[in-house]
């Protein structure tokens, strides 16, 4: 029972990350009709916003290290700690929450820049060309990050106050042995909040209503005199913000490296395909569903029956869905069916 409960939690928090990336992917596909293979790279850039912020906050003065005698080595003490003592240390400790605030305008700007300078020229081109150009863009972003930050993962810590594990078992009567990291619980909550915010924006604001109308019938909306292209540009920026925030929040879970985006991109595309291309609700539902399936398939009991199932389960589900219901679980009729 404990193991099942923990795997459900694992699946939900993994699914939260999948859903956030897939949400942006499907939003861009639904509005602009663009298959954006650079979306994983945007997630990675978001994570590196946190890394950059940490580098800025920990800018240090170098003092010669007397413990190294073979050559000149230096110890580093952050300026913030020198100037503000414990307050400076606390600011450094809260680097991830600070990065969330900073990354919103950065990711919005990056998204708009990408859309205006490159993506918009490919709206009327084939999906194959869109994939090629966005994949190329992803490689450029990856290599840029590698040039500046190196190839190894860079650890970024959650604030000390939430660094440990929550005795979640004792909350629900499963005993003290059932614990779960605080930060992963926060991540799960965060993804629910962000997903709700995106849905609220699209469903309960006039701006969102126009965007949805544009998704359904772009020509009619344009005939009404609405500059739908500008709104779609903002939607692209919004998708970048969602992916970027997912990346920032994921840094304490997984030390980011330049290749992280590619690792998530493939999974997220599978999520979008399973959920239904262009379906926002489908992307979210499939994200959580596949996260949970992946977690359960990793259990020893399951692997002893079907060895290696944990490595193929997501793709297996995608194959079954594509064969039996090509438009995905909640996809619009006609999409991907021809």
């Amino acid at each position, binding site marked *: 029972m*404990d*193991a099942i409960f*923990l*795997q459900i939690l*694992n*699946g939900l*928090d*993994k699914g939260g990350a999948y859903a956030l990336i897939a949400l942006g992917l499907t939003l861009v596909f639904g509005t602009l009709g663009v298959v954006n293979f650079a979306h994983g790279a945007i997630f990675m850039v978001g994570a590196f916003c946190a890394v950059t912020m940490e580098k800025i906050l920990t800018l240090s003065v170098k003092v010669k*290290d007397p*413990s*190294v005698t*073979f*050559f*000149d*080595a*230096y*110890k*580093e003490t952050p300026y913030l700690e020198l100037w503000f003592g414990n307050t400076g240390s606390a600011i450094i400790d809260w680097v991830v929450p600070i990065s969330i605030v900073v990354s919103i305008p950065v990711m919005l700007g990056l998204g708009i820049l990408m859309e205006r300078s490159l993506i918009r020229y490919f709206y009327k081109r084939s999906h194959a060309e869109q994939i090629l150009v966005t994949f190329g863009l992803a490689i450029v972003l990856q290599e840029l990050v*590698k040039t500046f930050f*190196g*190839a*190894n*993962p*860079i*650890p970024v*810590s959650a604030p000390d106050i939430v*660094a*440990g*594990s929550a005795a979640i078992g004792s909350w629900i009567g499963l005993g003290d*042995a*059932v*614990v*779960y*990291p605080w*930060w*992963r619980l926060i991540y799960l909550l965060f993804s629910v909040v962000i997903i709700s915010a995106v849905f609220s924006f699209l469903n309960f604001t006039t701006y969102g209503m126009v965007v949805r109308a544009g998704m359904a019938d772009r020509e009619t909306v344009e005939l009404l005199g609405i500059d739908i292209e500008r709104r779609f540009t903002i939607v692209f920026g919004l998708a970048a913000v969602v992916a970027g925030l997912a990346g920032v929040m994921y840094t*304490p*879970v*997984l*030390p980011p*490296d330049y*290749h*992280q985006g590619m*690792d998530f991109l493939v999974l997220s595309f599978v999520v979008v395909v399973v959920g239904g291309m262009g379906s926002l609700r489908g992307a979210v539902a499939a994200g959580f569903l596949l996260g949970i399936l*992946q*977690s359960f398939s*990793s*259990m*020893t009991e399951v*692997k002893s029956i079907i060895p290696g199932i*944990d*490595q193929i389960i997501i793709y297996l589900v995608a194959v079954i869905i594509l064969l039996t219901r090509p438009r995905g679980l909640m996809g619009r009729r006609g999409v991907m069916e021809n």
Partner: protein
Amino acid sequence: MSENKIIRNVSRRTVLKGSALTTGAAIIGATAPMHFIRNAYAADSFRGDPGSNKSIVLGFNVPQTGPYADEGADELRAYKLAVKHLNGEGDGGMLNTMKPNNLKGNGILGKKVEFVTGDTQTKSDAARASAKRMIEKDNVAMVTGGSSSGVAVAVQGLCQEMGVIFMAGLTHSNDTTGKDKKRYGFRHFFNAYMSGQALAPVLKDEYGSDRKAYHLTADYTWGWTQEESIKAATENIGWETVNTVRTPVGAGDFSQYITPVLNSGADVLILNHYGKDMVNSLTQAVQFGLKDKMVNGKKFEIVVPLYSRLMAQGAGDAAKGILGTTNWHWSLTDDGSQAFVKSFGQEYGFPPSQAAHTCYVQTLLYANACEMAGTFAPWEVIKQLEGYEFDGMGNGPTLYRAEDHQCFKDVLVVRGKEKPQSNFDLLEVVKHVPRAQVEYPADMFGGELGPYKV
């Protein structure tokens, strides 16, 4: 009249037969000497032969992209430093401490050392393609480098086929000098079996002999052999193995593999992971509170059998207090280590990693073997390396065992430092395990070296 008769009797068919016979005889006559001298010719020629060139080319095949690119960059720094020292530039580094030493600082056999580089991408096929290009296009006399056992085994196989010596970089699988060993392949780095033999007594001293271990293992050749070796070594000291779980390489999020550990009854988690996987699995295991957990009345412990400073750097605070083994560490105070760290530190501003050390040493050992052989002919160089005993290169007295081309030397047991004094001061040496404790019979892991001449 008679002449005419003769001419008339020579038919067209006879002329054709005669021509065919003459041509055949001419071909046989011309090629017969080649048949007798063919083997003699091949015996003297070899790939990478610099001939009358004034320089010799070495091939540095390292991961320049991919998850081990930082390790590859450090290997490349070490190779460049080795080339510098071999050519008589810089302070000479370990050329001043190596014993016995036939190197004179004038290149190798009087030829200036040059190099070409390749990118393994930590992928076997890419590494093989890169090595093949170096051998065929750049005419390298020796290939070296790599940060993965999968890559080492693949490139070593290619080098055996092509008759070019491969001085392996960082590879820790028992298979490299076990079932996949090759006559043309040599490994200076230690292996998984040695890690187990060195680590187990320290684990017993630190954590006792009544422990239950849970293994998470990278699902490829290195992970399998390390799991096997560590499992055997810990069971020998009385530990029970609760479970062994294989994880995909590059899994990223290991949470679904870590949560079952919580209720498994295990009180030790052994992470048979390396590089990015180790950084991720260790960080996440600590996030799940395993380091602070009490199980079976004992404090839960995490062990990382193969450790490196670069990995400790990636794992940050999570690495503190974690035990493991390493091939070499920059803080060693012997003459060889100090000479190398000084050269490397002055050149690049930070100390070398264990990968850099093993690559630097491999290059010098190859060069020295050529000097001893008096030729670049690989079969002669191989004979010099086989059974070669040396010292002054950072690991104490070391033997390149002839039977499997595995180096035997002391192994270091290290621990993630609780209070680092500098950015590089991340590991502390807990114990120097003497070579005798990690030795094993040469035929233990099977394999055949293959012929000297290919």
